[in-house]
Structures are given as C-alpha cells and as structure tokens.
C-alpha cells in the first residue's frame, strides 16, 4: 500500500516538474518539426494557406543553380574550416603545452576570440580588411610595395577570407579542448619515449594523437555540424556576396524563406540541411560506441 502511494506521488511530482517543459516542446519543437516537413511539400507564402505540390520543391531544388552553388560553397567552407581548425588546434595545443608564463598567457588569450560575440568579431575583420587604400591591412600591403586588395569584396578572396575569419574565431576552442586532453596523457608515456630517444614528431604522432583520438573524433563531427549551419558571421561580413561567392546554405535559406517569402521551398532546403546533420549525428554515435 505504502509503496504504491509513494510511486504515485513520485510520478505526480515528476509530471508536474516536466510538464512546463513538455508544453513548450510541443508548441515550439514538435509541432514546428511536423509543420516544417509538411510545408516542404507545399507552395506557401505565410499569408495564403499552403497548396500541396508533392515533391516539386525537392525536384526544383536539384535543378536550382543557386542551391547547387550554395551546397558547393558550404562544403568548401565546412571542409576547409574543420580540417584547418583541427590541425591548427592540435598543433597549438602541443605548442602551448609548456610550463612558461607566455604559454599560460597565450592559452588564456586564445579563448578571447571564442568568447567575443560573432557579430563583434566579424566587425573586427570588416575594419581590418577594409577594401580601400585606407584599410589597415591594405596600408601595410602598399607600404611593402604590393597593390591593395578588396578582400571580402573580391569574388575570389571572399570565401578564403571567411574561412580565415572562422579559424581566427574558433581555433582557440579546439586548442583548449586538445590541451585539456593532453594534460590527461600520463607523463610516464612521454618520458619513457624520450628516454628511448623518440623525436618530438614521433611522440606527437605516435603517442599523443592516438590517445586523443576519441576527443578528435568528437570535435571533428561537432565542428562539421556547427560549420554546416554557419550564418551570423557570413551575414554580417558579406551577406553571401560578392555574387554567390560566400552564399552558404544558411544564407540561401534565409533569402528564400524570409526575403522572398517562399516558405515551402525554404522548408525543403531546411529539411535537406537537417537530413545531412542527422546522417552525421548517427555516424558520430556509431563511431563513439
């Protein structure tokens, strides 16, 4: 008797504790999830009721040159930023794994760009690389005898510059994650290898990096997922321009759904973006197991 009432009391308490969360989830997560998938099969402008058009949005998507271009730009952005952030993150972690004051200071400083809000960090780069002779970096270029560049306004430079920005902004995070991983590598492993006369390169690639592998894989996949959805920094720096140069999927989705008010087609793009992330997440769960 007592047990039953305790169990009941517990269930009731649990229900009252998760109910507010469940209601919010129902309205702002589950319902939108279903609506989004439904909307991707319709033509819809937010004002008139949606019209069912079957698979047309998805068929159109793969014939849409802007969409294909956005996928290509996004893949370029994701692969470059993720690979460079990983390699530099590991290298910087090894570099900063030293007991000096300068190393400690640099570790602290490297987290500053990570903490600074995206819009403010993006502004720093807009100002540094102003596309005229008055820009700080351009002045240094002309001073050294080179012609000044248009940086983010240059069709060919814009994407590499956005990638460089992303590394400047995010590499500190990877560095500190790998650094805290390094701290957990037992000192004896490294010391005994040194006694055996192993080179630093050998110690890094054969001992330290294999031990960091789980962290590396986790970082790799979470970085891909977050880079795949990039929006804020690119919107502020180039708004996807010049031309199509930096129009990633996030920017294209925003333009389609909220500037052109094509909610149906926009939803199809969002479903596509989500499908890719789901595949990556499943891959991650499998790898970590």
């Amino acid at each position, binding site marked *: 008797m007592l047990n039953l009432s*305790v169990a009941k009391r517990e269930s009731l308490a649990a229900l009252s504790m998760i109910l507010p969360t469940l209601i919010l989830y129902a309205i702002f997560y589950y319902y*939108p999830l279903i609506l989004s998938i439904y909307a991707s099969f319709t033509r819809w402008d937010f004002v008139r009721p949606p019209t069912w058009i079957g698979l047309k949005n998805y068929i159109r998507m793969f014939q849409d040159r802007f969409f294909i271009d956005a996928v290509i730009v996004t893949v370029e952005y994701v692969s470059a930023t993720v690979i460079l952030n990983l390699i530099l993150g590991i290298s910087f972690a090894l570099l900063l794994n030293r007991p000096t004051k*300068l190393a400690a200071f640099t570790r602290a400083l490297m987290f500053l760009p*990570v903490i600074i809000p995206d819009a403010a960090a993006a*502004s720093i780069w807009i100002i540094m690389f102003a596309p005229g002779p008055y820009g700080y970096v351009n002045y240094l270029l002309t001073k050294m005898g080179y012609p000044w560049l248009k940086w983010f306004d240059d069709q060919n430079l814009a994407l590499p510059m956005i990638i460089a920005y992303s590394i400047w902004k995010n590499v500190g995070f990877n560095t500190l994650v790998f650094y805290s991983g390094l701290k957990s590598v037992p000192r004896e492993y490294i010391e005994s290898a040194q006694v055996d006369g192993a080179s630093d390169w050998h110690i890094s690639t054969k001992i330290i990096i294999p031990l960091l592998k789980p962290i590396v894989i986790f970082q790799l996949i979470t970085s891909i997922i977050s880079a795949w959805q990039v929006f804020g920094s690119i919107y502020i720096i180039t708004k996807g321009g010049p031309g199509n140069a930096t129009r990633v999927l996030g920017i294209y989705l925003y333009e389609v759904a909220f500037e052109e008010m094509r909610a149906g087609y926009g939803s199809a793009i969002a479903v596509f973006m989500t499908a890719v992330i789901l595949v990556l997440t499943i891959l991650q769960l499998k790898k970590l197991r």
Partner: protein
Amino acid sequence: MRAYKWTKKEIIAHILMIIIDLAILVPIYFLIITAFKPYNEIIRVPPTFWPQNFTLDNFFSFAALREVNLIRATINSLLISVVVTAGTLFFSTLAGYAFAMLRFKFKEPIFIAILSKYMMPTALLLVPWYWIMRILGLVDNLIAVIIVNLIGAWTIYYMRSYISQIPTDYVESARIDGASELEIFMKIIMPLIKPAIGVATIINFLWSWNYFLWPLIILNSPENFTMPIAIAYVRYLGYAGGELLNYGGIAASSLVYALPIVILYICLQRYLVESFISAGIKR
C-alpha cells in the same frame, strides 16, 4: 622544479606564441581605435594608428543617423539574455531533477525525445516559428525571441547528468522523514547543484547574447533591435546608400556589444574556460 631550458627549439616555440598573441591583439586594437576616430580620419590615407582627433561621436551619431539607439539595443539584448537564462535554468533544472531522481513511466523515451532537439538545426524550425508568431501577433516583439529559447535541451541533459551523481540515499531518507518532493528539491538538491547552475548560467547567457538568425527574422523595427541586429543594420545601411561603410558606427557598436563579455571573461577566466570545455560545446 628544474630550471627551464631555453634551447633553440624552445625559443622558436615562444616566438610562435608571440605571433599568435599579436594576431589576436592587433585586430582588436584596430577595432578600439577605429571606434574613437571621426569619419574623415577613418578613411584617411595613410591610416592613423592612434586617433588624432579623438571623438565619441561614433557612439552617439550612430544612434541619431541610423534610428538605432545603442542604449536601447543593449537593454533589449540584456533583457533577452537574462530572461532566457533564468527561464531555461528554471525549467531545465526541474526537468533534469525529474529525469535524474524520480521514477515514472516512459522516462527514457521522453528524455530521448527532448534530447533530440540538441542536434536539430534551428534552420528547420524557423519557418514554423515565424508562422506561429504571426498567429500569436508576436512578430517584431522581444517575447518571440525569448519564448522559443526557453527549451534548453543541453541544459536539461547537463542538469540530469549532474544531479544523477548525487547519492539517492539523501533523497530517500528525506522522503522517509516525510519531506515533499518540492521540499527535497529546494532544500537538498539545490544547495548541491550550485556549481552546475553556475556553469549552465554562464553558457546560456553567452549563447543568448549571441542570438542572431531568429532575432534578425522576427525583429523589424529599430527600437526592438538587439545589439547584433543593430550592428548588421548599420553595416548594410552604409552599403545601400552607395557611400563608404560607417566603420566608426560598426566599431563603436561592436565595442559596446563585446565589452560585457570581455569583462566577464577577465573576471572569470579559468572558470569560464573550464565551463566551456566540460560542457563540450562552443555554441
């Protein structure tokens, strides 16, 4: 402790560190000096490396010229961050406790259903959110930004993990003493999870201070802009007019926007880095 050996390799390593430090500090320095330069000095060739005609105009003319008020935008940003952080923590701690300590039907499936939001991209929810806000009459209203962000999948997950580490005996013995579930939560659990609340507060605050895409969609009038939307607005107004960018306005607003975070970082440096790393996330 052995004396540090300054071999050739170590010297090169430290020179590399100085280069990294400069690559971070010099751009920030340029932002700061630009914020205090008048327009005609910003576009002067060669550029000045210290404001010759020091001015605070960028912080104010920014407002008058562009209909955006920096103070207003800061208040809007603060309001959103504070309410979202407090709300998320309130709901998520309660839910996290229920998932960690209480037995009830369908616990695992409900938890997984909640957790799935963590990996779901916001992109998928934007169109429906916009439509819901049209129906609720919340377009161009700060409440629209707050309300969709009260469901923190990560915070629930984090709180559940933390609360799971508390021995169940504590709770069981309190129950035998006749304490209600609410009393147990407030008197026993809350004091024990203060560190987790600290971490979750910082992370949620930094996240919400960064909100960009959804506010950009839902907030339309300058008096409702948050800081990042105000910065984007100033950036593109300069473009549309065919004139040169309002670099001073961008610099000044970014400085105001980043300052609270930088101060927070300087005060809580170690704690903040550890929070981020233990959370295993960046945004």
